[in-house]
């Protein structure tokens, strides 16, 4: 067991609201660690619509999701937040000393005065393809990611999808697997053209199969896949396979946070509107993941929530200390923290 990372605040989610929380907390000298399931900051802004313009960020008549993320990263840089990407928060408990312990699926432990849930629509998780009965095969012969290529050695592999993941794994697993069949609903791909060309070349050489169609059924007992039915433009074909890797993008789920015992309102976390605190004191929820009467899922609402949450966290982390409210325009101490003095 690694020793826990001691910090002031753990922020779950590195989307725009989680990032801005670093700024607000930083002004009060509260150090943050951020945990996100994605491999980079920005949350939905970076994952779902990096190129799409957003028109309702104050003072930005138009800004893209990626540009907003970049600007926020620049704004919080003086506070040196520490990021832990590709991780999902799994465990949570209150410690005897009043602090909280948060655990990730990689086994890291964090100890903090406060936990701020800024998880937006939830954590991005692989989308389950719409194939009846697929649940029974998951984790046994259907996998949504490749952890070790060796697990696919000498297997008859069915890869489904038309993006980079599907194409990359088709190319990379072909030398390892006994056979590889790629299935995509159309002959065009969303993947890098170079990978697509390589895939078609492999097919020419007879190294892989490529079927145009959609998987409509799976066969095999006890979770062990034996064949898949593929419905294509010319009817149905059956492809023998004992491993399937579907790549259907990501969807958002609340995940393990749902089991923390927080009061919820239709899959959202109920908070008050003074501190944006959940039903567990010391645990806060800001941004799209929270709910209160009148809630609007706007980035700017999340920014406001971050500012008010910070006041409460400051009191929690340094009880009894006098709260001095200051403006960044005039306070020399804040400007020093921002590195502009």
């Amino acid at each position, binding site marked *: 067991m690694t020793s826990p990372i001691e910090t002031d605040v753990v922020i779950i989610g590195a989307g725009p609201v989680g990032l801005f929380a670093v700024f607000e907390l930083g002004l009060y000298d509260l150090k943050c660690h951020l945990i996100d399931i994605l491999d980079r900051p920005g949350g939905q802004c970076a994952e779902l*619509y990096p190129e*799409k313009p957003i028109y309702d960020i104050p003072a930005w008549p138009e800004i893209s999701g990626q540009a907003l993320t970049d600007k926020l990263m620049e704004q919080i840089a003086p506070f040196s937040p520490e990021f832990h990407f590709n991780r999902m928060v799994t465990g949570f408990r209150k410690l005897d000393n009043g602090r909280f312990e948060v655990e990730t699926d990689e086994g890291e432990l964090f100890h903090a005065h406060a936990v701020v849930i800024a998880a937006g629509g939830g954590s991005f998780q692989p989308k389950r393809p719409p194939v009846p009965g697929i649940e029974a095969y998951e984790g046994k012969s259907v996998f949504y990611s490749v952890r070790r290529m060796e697990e696919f050695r000498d297997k008859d592999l069915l890869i489904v999808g038309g*993006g980079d993941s599907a194409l990359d794994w088709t190319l990379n697993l072909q030398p390892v697997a006994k056979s590889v069949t790629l299935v*995509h*609903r159309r002959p065009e791909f969303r993947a890098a053209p170079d990978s697509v060309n390589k895939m078609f070349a492999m097919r020419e050489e007879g190294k892989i199969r490529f079927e145009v169609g959609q998987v409509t059924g799976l066969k095999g007992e006890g979770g062990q896949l034996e064949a898949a039915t593929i419905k294509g433009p010319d009817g149905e074909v059956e492809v023998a396979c004992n491993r399937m890797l579907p790549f259907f*993008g990501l969807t958002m789920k609340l995940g393990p946070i749902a089991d923390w015992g927080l009061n919820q309102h239709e899959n959202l976390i109920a908070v008050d509107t003074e501190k944006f605190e959940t039903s567990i004191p010391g645990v806060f929820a800001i941004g799209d993941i929270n709910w209160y009467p009148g809630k609007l899922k706007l980035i700017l609402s999340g920014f406001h929530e971050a500012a008010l949450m910070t006041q409460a966290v400051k009191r929690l982390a340094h009880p009894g200390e006098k709260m001095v409210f200051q403006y960044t325009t005039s306070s020399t101490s804040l400007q020093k923290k921002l590195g502009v003095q």
Partner: protein
Amino acid sequence: MTKITLVAFDGTRFDVDAENGSTVMENAIRNSVPGIEAECGGACACATCHVYVDDAWAEIVGAPEAMEEDMLDFAFDVRPTSRLSCQIKVRDELDGLVVHVPERQA
């Protein structure tokens, strides 16, 4: 106002007066048509507002653009007239449009 009809998977018809310039998805949500989820709110980023355009209307509505076609890869039971309803803008020529909601969204 342009009249459009959304047919839910169970056959229930929703006849809607739609404003030109609004999307079919927005009208579905406003009228609580079951089976249209629109998780991403209309950003063409999730494929949960998938509909089948009625065959009679497929040509007038037109084919999806490349980005929408890419997103349709994530939809369930995609057919030749599949569209994401957030990408169909209501206009005069679509008066009488009929779209069908699939059995499920992805």
